[in-house]
């Protein structure tokens, strides 16, 4: 008979790293079927998070810190391969509306609008997230923009920073007859101090507020960043100290009239605010509003992709329903690309929710899954707040 050419068909098998590159979804499913994730974490295991104890803040009293920096708060957070640094800087703006005004009508009007607007009692910080990719001078990406905006919105809506804690309590510098320089602040005075009238004069006319900026730089992005950036931002805000601000006494006299040759000139003194280099106050935060963020993904385990035991072929005939599992703290490209149902939760250790974001592009988001992730985020929050010493 004619001889047929025989061809050996052998199964090609790839090492795990290569399979992960060429077919991330299959690789992820194979891992999941073994009860593991590509990062070798368990399904509901979080990455370890560490924050740096070293501080570079101007007011941290750390010796290595240059006296001339303008950083008010600082944090470095490490989680897995990702490092997030947050630096809080600030500015001072003059308020449009005098807060403590003599005009009673206006005061009432202010009270009225305040009562109507819950969020108006709080302020946000202005975050600027940069994800380092080794390129310079490129416009911010969609991810950086949305992250910054989400952080901003969440700070505002969580009500972490009350407006009054950013109000500048302006001090006064005076030089007495012996040439001693003395700085006094309104909250350090006795009631019967004579300087009090001067403060009253200033605060009637003008008022100022601090504005906080957060520059967040991310190195080594491996997965979704919102939880990491949020946690880092919270820690940085906790460490923030606002510099005391004073006016020169002479400047406090707002007007003086100068007469020269019968012509009168009014010289208005500019209010030059000076930040006290040695004196600062911690930023007062609403401790009730402080929560930590965590994220969760939901994915169906595809029964087709399971690595089945060779022996139980008989049982394989039973069609398996896909089981959906909850993955905590999404990381690695494989998970980020293939897990399309994501829950992001910001909650405090008591289980009070501050923000909850569900995106359901993939597996069904069931109530059970949401409950499970809220519970998990609560314990995570407890964990983090004890770790970062937030309970003080």
């Amino acid at each position, binding site marked *: 008979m004619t001889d047929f050419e025989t061809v050996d068909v052998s199964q090609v098998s790839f090492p795990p790293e290569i399979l992960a590159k060429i077919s991330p979804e299959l690789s992820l499913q194979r891992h999941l079927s073994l009860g593991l994730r590509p990062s070798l974490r368990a399904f509901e295991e979080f990455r370890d998070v560490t924050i740096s104890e070293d501080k570079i803040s101007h007011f941290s009293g750390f010796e290595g810190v240059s006296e001339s920096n303008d950083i008010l708060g600082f944090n470095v957070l490490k989680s897995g391969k990702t490092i997030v640094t947050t630096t809080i800087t600030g500015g001072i703006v003059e308020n449009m509306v005098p807060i403590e005004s003599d005009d009673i009508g206006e005061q009432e009007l202010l009270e009225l609008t305040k009562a109507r607007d819950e969020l108006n009692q709080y302020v946000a910080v202005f975050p600027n997230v940069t994800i380092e990719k080794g390129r310079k001078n490129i416009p911010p990406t969609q991810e950086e923009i949305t992250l910054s905006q989400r952080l901003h919105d969440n700070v505002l809506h969580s009500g972490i920073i009350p407006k009054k804690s950013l109000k500048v309590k302006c001090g006064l510098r005076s030089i007495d007859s012996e040439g001693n320089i003395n700085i006094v602040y309104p909250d350090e005075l006795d009631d019967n101090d004579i300087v009090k009238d001067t403060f009253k004069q200033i605060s009637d006319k003008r008022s100022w507020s601090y504005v906080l900026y957060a520059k967040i730089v991310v190195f080594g992005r491996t997965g979704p960043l919102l939880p990491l950036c949020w946690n880092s931002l919270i820690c940085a805000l906790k460490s923030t100290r606002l510099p005391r601000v004073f006016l020169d006494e002479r400047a406090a006299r707002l007007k003086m009239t100068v007469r020269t040759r019968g012509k009168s000139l009014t010289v208005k003194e500019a209010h030059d605010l000076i930040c006290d280099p040695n004196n600062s106050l911690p930023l007062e935060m609403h401790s009730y509003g402080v929560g930590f963020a965590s994220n969760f993904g939901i994915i169906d385990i595809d029964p087709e992709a399971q690595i089945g035991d060779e022996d139980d072929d008989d049982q394989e005939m039973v069609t398996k329903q896909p089981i959906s599992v909850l993955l905590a703290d999404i990381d690695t490209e494989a998970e980020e690309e293939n897990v399309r149902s994501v829950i992001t939760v910001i909650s405090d250790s008591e289980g009070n929710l501050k923000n909850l974001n569900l995106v359901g*592009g993939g597996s069904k988001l069931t109530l059970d899954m949401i409950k499970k992730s809220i519970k998990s985020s609560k314990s995570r929050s407890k964990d983090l707040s004890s770790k970062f010493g937030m309970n003080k």
Partner: protein
Amino acid sequence: MSFSGNIGLLTEVDGSSQVECEDTKVICAVTGPIEPKARQELPTQLALEIIVRPAKGVPSTREKLMEDRLRSVITPIVSLYQYPRKLCQITCQILESGESEYEFSQKELSCCINATLLALIDSGLALNSIASSVSMAILKGSDDVIINPTNSQLLQSQSVHVLALQLIEGSRKVKNVLFLDSSGDFTEQQLFNVLEIGEKSCLELGLTLRSIIESKVKSSFIS
């Protein structure tokens, strides 16, 4: 709940709609599938270009975030794999925001989602299902969930929510939660209330959207 929708009012695009819900008004235009720019092209699926324009001023990071959220709602409902290497442009112009723009974007987002859905239907682009969205608020010191709150209700609220659901089987069944964003101060129980009440009104809205679409389909068929 006051809701009105209008389909196919623009002539030079493939699909268009205008939606008004309480004080918020959005007009949406869809063009596609068209030829993409080289950098937008995806080898196996339809690329979506989503643009949200504010009621006043130029788009800022706030609108970028809304675009991102709109995208996460639209992506699962469009049958993307039927149009490889093509592009669909979706533009939402907010005509009236109906809320304090610095603090909130909830009402605008939910209106944009509904408007986009109607415009997509009008364009004849293949969709897997329809979707509907509502905004909600829980007032301070109360547990009641308010559907499509007014701006002053938003200002007095303790927490604000946007919910978008994917509806199938004659808009009577919820297939999945497409999007939920809750901000403010709320408890787990309140969240589940929001989901439950939101689901009810999303289904209701689904039927309203359905009747808007049906009357449009009927009118386009010559009898």
